[in-house]
């Protein structure tokens, strides 16, 4: 496998892209921005043969990855299936980290404690980040996974950024003509707005 430059601030976010997950999606973006990290997602990667290669390239280029396994339920549309993308991409990241211990670190997040150990028992012995399905919970878990040595932001400070970001969302979405937050352009602009808010409010 050819070597690829690892971005020390980049975090691969492996999340479900659904409306019920929007608030946690924003919480991850804000939390990572407050820690001066930059989120990366698979939005915008087209389907087809090359998709898997590009996802793997993205994982390899990120120093960290966060895998949220909260969506293990069957979906609401026929045929009723669980979603395997998140555990699959976690598997890619784990394998990559095994081969390159110094260049990749992964974390697993879940809403409910013990559920991931049932749905994916291979994770037994791994510390999971249980956020309880709330935005402050996501921020708390990010703060327990990462510590900024110079100035660690607090959860209330991150929540202030989160609320300010939510106020600006209608403009960002309207300008992009986007029906949801899970579009590549919206993701980039929301992430940049979160980074700007963090600089302004947290220094």
């Amino acid at each position, binding site marked *: 496998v050819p070597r690829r430059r690892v*971005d*020390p*601030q*980049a975090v691969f976010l492996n999340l479900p892209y659904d409306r019920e997950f929007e608030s946690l999606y924003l919480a991850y973006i804000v939390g990572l921005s407050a*820690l*001066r*990290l*930059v989120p990366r997602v698979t939005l915008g990667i087209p389907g087809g043969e090359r998709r898997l290669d590009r996802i793997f390239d993205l994982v390899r280029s990120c120093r*960290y990855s966060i895998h949220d396994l909260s969506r293990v339920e069957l979906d609401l549309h026929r045929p009723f299936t669980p979603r395997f993308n998140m555990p699959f991409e976690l598997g890619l990241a784990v394998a990559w980290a095994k081969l390159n211990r110094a260049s990749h*670190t992964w974390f697993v997040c879940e809403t409910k404690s013990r559920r991931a150990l049932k749905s994916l028992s291979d994770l037994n012995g791994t*510390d999971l980040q249980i956020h309880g399905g709330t935005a402050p919970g996501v921020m708390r878990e990010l*703060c*327990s*996974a*990462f*510590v*900024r*040595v*110079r100035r660690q932001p607090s959860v209330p400070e991150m929540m202030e950024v989160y609320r*300010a970001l939510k*106020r*600006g*969302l*209608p*403009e*960002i979405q*309207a*300008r992009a003509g986007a029906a949801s937050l899970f579009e590549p352009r919206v993701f*980039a*602009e929301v*992430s*940049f*707005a979160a*980074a*700007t*808010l963090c*600089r*302004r*409010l947290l220094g």
Partner: protein
Amino acid sequence: MAQPIKLLSPGLSLEQTAKFLGVPPARARELEALVDDSLNGGSTMSQRVAPRNKATKHVSKGISKRSRAKKAR
């Protein structure tokens, strides 16, 4: 419990972040202005899209007490 990862780097500048995320410089400046506007309590775009919200609010409220009283009269 695993030890948290210590982040020593000051992180990317806003310009570098915009470049990294693929946000064009002109749009990055607009977003910075939007953020500043919003923090200063100025006219954010969320207020600019208010007419639609206002209409929804009006419908959901139904007939006001005042107009009901007027009709009764």
